[in-house]
C-alpha cells in the first residue's frame, strides 16, 4: 500500500505545479502580447499584439510638457480617477523639472470605464481645457485636477470640473458647451485603443522612447528612482 500512498502524495502537488506552469505561460503570453487576445475582448481587438511599435506617433496634436524635441520622450496613458495615476503624475512632474529640455512628457487618455465611470468625462474636460486655453491650460488643468481630487470616482464632477476651468481662467460658458459636446469622444477612444494595442492592461501605462527610437514599456506608478534610471538609460541609447 505504501508506494500507492506516496504516489497520491505526489499527484496533487504535481497537478498544481502543472496548473501553475499553465498560469505562468498564460501570464507570459498575456504580457508579451503576441496572441494575447481572448474571447472576452471586444471586436476589433483580434489584432491585439501588445506591440510597442503600434504606438501612434507623437504629433503636434499631442499634449506635450517640456521640449517637444527632447531626446527622451515619455508617453503616458492615464486615467484621471486612478489613484496610481495621481501619484505617477507627481513623479513625472518631478522628472520634467529635473530633466527640463532632455525629457518631453506626452499625456494620452486611458479611462478605465468599468472601474471609473467618471474618468471619460474628465478626459473630455482636459481636451476642452486644451481647446480653450492651449497646451499650457491643458497641463494647468491636469495638475490641478490630480492635486485636488481624491480618485476612485469620489469627486462631484458637476461642480469640480467647471470650478477648475474657472480657476485657471477659462471661459466657463464655452467650457460647459464643450463638455456637453461629443467632439472629443473619438479622439479619447482612439487613445484608449492605442493604449491596449501597445500592451497597456492597466493605468498608468507609459512608454519611454530613447533618442535611437527604442521603446521601453513601464507599467504602474513606479518610484521616482526607477523612472530616473530608465530616463538615464534611454539618454545613453543614441
Amino acid at each position, binding site marked *: *500500500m*505504501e508506494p500507492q*500512498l*506516496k504516489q497520491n*502524495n*505526489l499527484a*496533487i*502537488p504535481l497537478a*498544481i*505545479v502543472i*496548473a*501553475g506552469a499553465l*498560469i505562468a505561460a*498564460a*501570464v*507570459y503570453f*498575456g*504580457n*508579451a502580447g503576441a496572441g*494575447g*487576445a*481572448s*474571447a*472576452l*475582448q*471586444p471586436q476589433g*481587438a483580434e489584432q491585439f499584439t501588445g506591440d510597442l511599435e503600434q504606438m501612434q506617433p507623437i504629433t503636434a496634436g499631442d499634449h506635450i510638457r517640456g521640449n517637444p524635441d527632447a531626446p527622451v520622450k515619455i508617453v503616458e496613458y492615464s*486615467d484621471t480617477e*486612478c*489613484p*496610481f495615476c495621481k*501619484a505617477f503624475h507627481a*513623479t513625472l512632474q518631478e522628472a520634467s523639472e529635473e530633466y527640463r529640455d532632455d525629457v518631453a512628457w506626452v499625456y494620452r487618455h486611458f479611462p*478605465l470605464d*468599468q*472601474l471609473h465611470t467618471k474618468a471619460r468625462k474628465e478626459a473630455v474636460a482636459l481636451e476642452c481645457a486644451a481647446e480653450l486655453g492651449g497646451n499650457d491650460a491643458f497641463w494647468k488643468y491636469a495638475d490641478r485636477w490630480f492635486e485636488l481630487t481624491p*480618485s*476612485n470616482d469620489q469627486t462631484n464632477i458637476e461642480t469640480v470640473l467647471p470650478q477648475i476651468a474657472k480657476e485657471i481662467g477659462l471661459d466657463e460658458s464655452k467650457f460647459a458647451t464643450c463638455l456637453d459636446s461629443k467632439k472629443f469622444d473619438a479622439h479619447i477612444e482612439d487613445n484608449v485603443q492605442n493604449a*491596449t494595442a501597445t*500592451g*497597456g*492592461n*492597466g*493605468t*498608468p501605462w507609459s512608454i519611454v522612447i530613447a533618442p535611437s527610437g527604442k521603446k*521601453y*514599456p*513601464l*507599467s*504602474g*506608478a*513606479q*518610484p521616482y*528612482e*526607477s523612472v530616473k*534610471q*530608465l530616463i*538615464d*538609460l534611454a539618454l545613453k*541609447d543614441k
Partner: protein
Amino acid sequence: MRGVLTSLANTRSAVVALTVAATVFAIAVWLPNLRLLFAIWTDASVSLGDKLALPISLLSSIATNFTLLSASYTIAIAVLAGVNAALIVRLIQMRGVFGSGAAVGASGIFTGAIGLGCAACGSLILTSLIGTVGGISILALLPLRGGEFGILGVVLLGVSTYLLAKQITKPFVCEPANIKV
C-alpha cells in the same frame, strides 16, 4: 506554531524560507514590468550596473504601486510561501513525503498570484490572463477589485502552514493503511 519554529531553527530550512520569500516578493513586485526587465536584461548595450540597478529600484514599488491591502497580502504571501517551502523541505527530510499541506500551499500561492498587482487600476494578473476588457469587467464586480484572490491565497497558505506543521510534529507511529472494522 512549535513545528514552524522548530523547522525554522534549522539552518537549511531558514535559508530555504528566506530564499523563497525573497523570490516570491521580487517576482510579485516585478510582475507588471517583466517585459521591461526582459528587454533590459537581454540588451547587450546595457551595462551590468544598469541591468542590476533597475530591478533593485523597482522593488520599492511595493510602496508606490500597491494599495495598503495589496501590499499587505503580497508581503504575507511571500513570507508564508517561504515558511511553507521550509516546512516542506523539513517534512521531506523527516518523512520522505510532501504531505497534503504542500498541495494547499501551492494552490494558495497561485490563487494569491492572481490577485497581485494594482487592483484600483485594473493591472492585476487577472487582466493579463483573460484580456484587458474582460479582466477589468470582472474586477468591477468584485467588492475588493480582485483583492479577494490575494486574501484567499493568504488563507490557503495559512491552512497549508498549519497542516505541514501538524504533520511535522506528528509522532512516529505505525498506522495501518486500511482498517476494516
